[in-house]
């Protein structure tokens, strides 16, 4: 699948980025951003996850569209579970609930 060999510099670069993001997310947790603390933490986590998926797992360099379909589908399916469950819990307080 990967005929093309990545440079080790690229891997080290991603590794540094991941470490930096980790330290950032830990430090930012102590700053009061109100409701944005959660959002910032999840955004940083998602950036880290994307770095791992795209570069360490080679998804950026693959010509195989099916791999991307599988990843997107699984995230979509997870969202179905989360969103439709929330549709129940989130609307209980409305009207009679």
């Amino acid at each position: 699948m990967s005929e093309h060999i990545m440079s080790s510099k690229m891997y080290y670069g991603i590794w540094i980025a991941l470490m930096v993001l980790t330290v950032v997310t830990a430090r930012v947790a102590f700053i009061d951003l109100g409701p944005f603390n959660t959002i910032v933490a999840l955004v940083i986590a998602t950036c880290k996850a994307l770095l791992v998926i795209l570069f360490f797992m080679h998804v950026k360099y693959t010509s195989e569209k099916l791999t991307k379909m599988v990843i997107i589908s699984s995230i979509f399916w997870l969202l179905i579970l989360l969103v439709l469950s929330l549709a129940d819990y989130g609307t209980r307080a409305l009207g009679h609930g």
Partner: protein
Amino acid sequence: MATAAITAEREHYLNKEYGIRSWLLTTDHKRIALLYLVSITFFFFIGGFFALLIRLELLTPAGDMVQADTYNKLFTMHGMVMIFFFLIPSIPAVLGNFLVPIMIGAKDLAFPRINLLSWYLYIIAGVMMLYCIVTGGVDTGWTFYTPFSTAFSNTNVIEAGLAIFIAGFSSILTGLNFVVTIHRMRAPGMTWSRLPLFIWAHYATSIIQLLGTPVLAITLLLVVFERVFHLGIFDPTRGGDPILFQHLFWFYSHPAVYIMILPSMGVVTEIIPCFSRKRVFGYHAIALSSIAIAVFGFLVWAHHMFVAGISLYSALIFSALSYLVAVPSAIKVFNWTATMYKGSITFSTPMLYAFGFIGLFTMGGLTGLFLSALGIDVHVTDTYFVVAHFHYIMVGGAVMGYLGGMHFWWPKISGRMYPEWLGKFAALIVFLGFNLTFFPQFVLGYLGMPRRYWQYPQEFQVLNVLSTAGSTILAVGYVLPMVYFLWSMRYGKIADDNPWGAAGLEWKTTSPPPTFNFEEAPEVTWEAYNYDQIPAPAEVPLER
């Protein structure tokens, strides 16, 4: 399993090797399919045995045959065994395993050893389930609702939960194998639009198995954790939410019903064009409707929870989505009918089962729409109306499709013909027995008889007696094929490569096929269901 050599000279997958090791260590998808056939048949009769006990108890209004607690165990184990150890594997693990590689022109599935592993996982799970049954059973209902299952039941909840967890892995691995095989192992020229619709159906089924079963796995694991480690996520005394359990449970268990029906629909879609001598009407509509069912099927689960305490607004959303999911199924029914229109119909045994499927599945599906209407559901939920609804689909639909498929492909699998007149006779018995068993249950539910009750008011007795009578007839109808299939393996007429004059790559190889499926790797240059080019057989073979 070893049969007498059919034509003494020719080697095929059954006579290539003999001996128990050659079966238990096989990686040949066809042999694995037969291993599954034996195993699921065994569990079918275990589940059927529980069904007969239930029907016997319900002959009389009083709870006079077993204790109430025992009755709870009977319907629980009937459900668990039938769903997880018969219906979910049935067509995919037997017919799917056998046919998927051959239909696409491959030598085997992508991962033959994982295929064998999936069977061993199934067996381990089955043994655990049997252990659970003989050491006292489970009484939670196949739905494991909390907090009864986590905090109050004194039965083998942990063993049953773990058994089903392991069976779930078997199911996931089968689905994984099929998806990879269908993507990567198609023969040259076998484009997506030339695939048999049986393959499309199994592809859609596999998606559900892959994406839904893990949620059941984690949910049952959390139930086990609660009982073993006191991790009380569903424990109301700790603020745990029993409805959360139901959300997680039904997220899988609703799509699971599509795992059970889609393969059957795939079988019917193969049978009907063959015995109508016509191309399938609306190939792409049927293919895409299978995918649509797989996707929409994940959006409707809370219709099992309308009266559980979910918010009214979410109930409205799920009700609307449940109407939507009926549309692709309806499309299939229209297309099957249109395929038959102006076709040249032969009422062979597989075709009889296909007809039965269409009628009974339609009734089951339409009653599903009644249940999706909130106003009706409030009255008939947890009554025999629901029981009848799902048995019409599971038994009238899925099992009829399974039996039709077994008859249709039996010549290919065994190299022998079953006795056609007996096949027709058994099909009729199944149809009559089925309707007598389950139609009264619609009426019972409508009149208010609750499900999972071991006694009932006197006024319901007549209908219950009819239902029990039907179940004994149905049982006969199920035993007959087992008997004559076994008989045919030694005494049946030797089958041609293509006794039905059917389209599809499996009919271009020998009956039974060689171990690697084809003498020469096929190259496909024709469209699917090219019945305009295939001559009908001189006669539908009759065995006397």
